[in-house]
């Protein structure tokens, strides 16, 4: 039995396959009822497929993958057939960048993260690890033997505090962020950086896929979207995209920022995100301010990294609760602290949507969560204003 799964529970395999270089059979563990497959075309991330497995096996991978593939994969396949030169890998960047990892007492995860960071091609990037109010010396000791990594200790707790520290310490124009429980694809950084050739791009983001799908909680998180925003390139521009929907760009686990953009809109809001009563939302608030400030954000579906989702149901529930608190905290900040009525409009429409969902849920419409879950979300959303006020006072 695999780690984290309860007795007899089903798991899923996570695979990374190239359509032009498929194995003859897919052979996973007997508990794997299906596989989530990242599909590549000519080496570049293109789309995904969900394929069923029988006793952890699939004897006709090509058939199964083509049947389960998404529209992005088909578009990429067609594009590469029509013009193979379009699938070129990202070039080495013109100027070096910084990668920052904010961590707190998760040495085992961090070890995997750092190993993946060091496996990326060396374009002169500097890797910063910001150790945020650690309780032990484990992170410090882990990195002591790694000269390519700069260790920074930030004793004020809070993810946004640590992110701001990383921005201060960085010596390059572009700073890419990832989390300690994530691991980048080898070309992750290069792919993010190619988007900054456009001087209007203030941030670039990318898709994040699960490292493992061992538990119900991990599968649920991924099934309802997770950190993934699809496999198609998006450019978020204030002309066409409401800044309050900035979170469409992605999550802080996979983002790069232009430091000079932040000098006009300010650093991360330290009253938001992990370590404060608002629990999350520092990234969404940053995207909101970038878009409102006239900067563009590019979601580049090839800038791929991997994340270990929360394993237990309790952790997932806490995380979802946190997202609701944070989402409403950002809206209330916009409305009550910045005088922007758009925040209130969005908040009320969120509230109306949740009430409608509660109605469907009570009538047991298929595909809706249990009423208790919806009620918990609504309570989370009503918490935001208070949480932000408390965080500001702290």
């Amino acid at each position, binding site marked *: 039995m695999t780690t984290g799964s309860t007795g007899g529970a*089903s798991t*899923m395999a996570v695979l990374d396959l190239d359509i032009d270089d498929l194995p003859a059979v897919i052979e996973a563990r007997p508990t794997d*009822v299906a596989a989530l497959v990242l599909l590549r075309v000519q080496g570049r991330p293109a789309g995904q497929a969900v394929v069923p497995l029988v006793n952890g096996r699939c004897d006709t991978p090509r058939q199964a993958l083509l049947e389960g593939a998404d529209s992005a994969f088909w578009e990429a396949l*067609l594009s590469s057939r029509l013009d193979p030169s379009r699938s070129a890998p990202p070039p080495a960047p013109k100027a070096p960048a910084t990668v920052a990892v904010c961590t707190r007492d998760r040495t085992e995860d961090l070890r995997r993260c750092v190993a993946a960071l060091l496996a990326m091609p060396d374009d002169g990037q500097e890797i910063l690890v910001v150790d945020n109010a650690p309780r032990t010396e484990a992170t410090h000791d882990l990195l002591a033997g790694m000269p390519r990594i700069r260790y920074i200790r930030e004793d004020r707790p809070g993810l946004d505090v640590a992110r701001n520290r990383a921005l201060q310490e960085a010596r390059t124009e572009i700073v890419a962020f990832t989390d300690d429980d994530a691991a980048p694809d080898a070309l992750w950084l290069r792919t993010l950086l190619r988007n900054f050739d456009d001087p209007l791009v203030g941030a670039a983001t990318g898709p994040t896929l699960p490292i493992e799908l061992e538990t119900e909680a991990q599968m649920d998180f991924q099934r309802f*979207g997770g950190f993934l925003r*699809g496999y198609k390139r998006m450019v978020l521009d204030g002309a066409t995209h409401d800044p309050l929907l900035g979170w469409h760009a992605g999550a802080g686990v996979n983002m790069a920022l232009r430091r000079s953009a932040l000098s006009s809109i300010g650093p991360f809001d330290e009253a938001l995100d992990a370590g404060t009563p608002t629990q999350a939302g520092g990234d969404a608030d940053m995207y909101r301010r970038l878009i409102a400030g006239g900067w563009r954000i590019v979601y580049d579906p090839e800038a791929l990294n991997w994340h270990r989702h929360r394993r237990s149901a309790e952790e997932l529930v806490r995380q979802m609760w946190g997202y609701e608190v944070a989402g409403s905290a950002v809206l209330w900040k916009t409305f009550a602290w910045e005088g922007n009525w758009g925040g209130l409009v969005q908040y009320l429409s969120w509230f109306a949507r949740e009430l409608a969902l509660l109605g469907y849920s009570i009538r047991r419409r298929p595909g809706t969560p249990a009423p208790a879950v919806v009620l918990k979300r609504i309570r989370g959303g009503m918490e935001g204003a208070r949480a932000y006020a408390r965080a500001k006072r702290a």
Partner: protein
Amino acid sequence: MNDMWPDISVVVPTHNRMALLGRLLDALAAKDKTQDTMEIVIVADGCTDGTLAMLAKRTDLHLRVLELPGSGPAAARNAGAAAARGGLLIFLDDDVIPGKGFVAAHIAAHRRCPDAVVIGPYPPAPHTAPDLFRLRLRHWWISHFKEIARPGHRMRYTDLLTGNLSVPAALWVRLGGLDPAYHAHEDYELGLRVLQAGVPLIFAPEARALHFEHETMTVERSFRRAFEEGRADVMLAKRSPEVRRDLRAILWRRDRRIAPVDRLIFSGGGRMDRMAGWAARRLVWLERRGLRGLHGGLLRRLQAYWYIRGLSTGLRSFANWQALADEPVPAVLPATPLQVDIRDGFDTAEAAIDAARPDTVEIRYGHRLLGTMGPDDLAEPWRGAHLKPFVEKHLSLRYLQALVVDGLLDGHDDRTDRIAIMEAIERAKPYFGQQRSPWTWYEQFEQWRRVLKDTKAGQ
């Protein structure tokens, strides 16, 4: 370098933009190898801001200055072109700053294709103004040049803009220059004549310049422009009936009737101008309060207001508008289509299209008809380079399915269930194309549900 174009004339009409014009001249003076033989014709059109004094001090360039009393940009360009001595005319707007190698790139484009009209890109100079009007305008310009630069873009008359344009002087004379009666859309009108004369309209991506529209365009000016566009559209509709398919004045009738509020504006003849002015001043407040939707709606409505005021100036009576809207628009002539087969690759098909330059192309894959590249008498005839992008954009599903039937995606493995794969492509159909935000979640959720519906994880 200049044996074929011994002399270049850069023609710049200007109206009270001394500082920007100075920057434009600096950019032209900076190391362009052609400058020895290049003259710059500045048409100062009603300038009262010291532009002439500034120009008098510029001795570093072959400058010639014409003065007009304020006759409008079309007349100013015509006057500049008439005075120019060069064999190649390059038109620049006074808020467009050319980039490195700009002149050389225009020359190179004319060498590749003599007797053509060449347009270069002038996207907005990068600026981050937290201002909705600015952002929307910036987005319009960026999207405009992105579309023109897209491989396989089919040139239309609306792609001819005069801000960064070059034309051989002889061709300019043959075309008859711009129509000075127009105070807006004079470039579209020229574009119509260029396409109808069969003159190639070419995009030269290297002839890059930057547009400093954020220093010159304001909300109020956009209203004035909308007014002029209304007047110009009346002239365009009268001039060439086929263009009516495009004009807002005609597209706006709903159920063949013009909306009552539009009728009121039209007939009011300026009696509501003060109200429009009052509403325009509310824009700032809406923006400050972050009410994006209301701001966008009001701005569009106000621009429509001034457009209709322009229409009413041009048409004089409401009956004339009604008559113009009701007059049947000539249908696009159905031409005999050229048939091409892409089963054996694109090269032969592209060559056939390039040889015929047809209005309509029927694309076949073996005996299957994939689709038709349709006729458009307001656009250039089809070129071979249009084929692949057209298939990719409009026929991707059918083409992929044809490849599946042919066994090209499974390496001719006959154990493959090709019907199932065709069905899978059909399933992905609603999600093809550009991504709209929540759609990606629907698509992913469907993927999961299909596979896991029988297992515990899918419930």
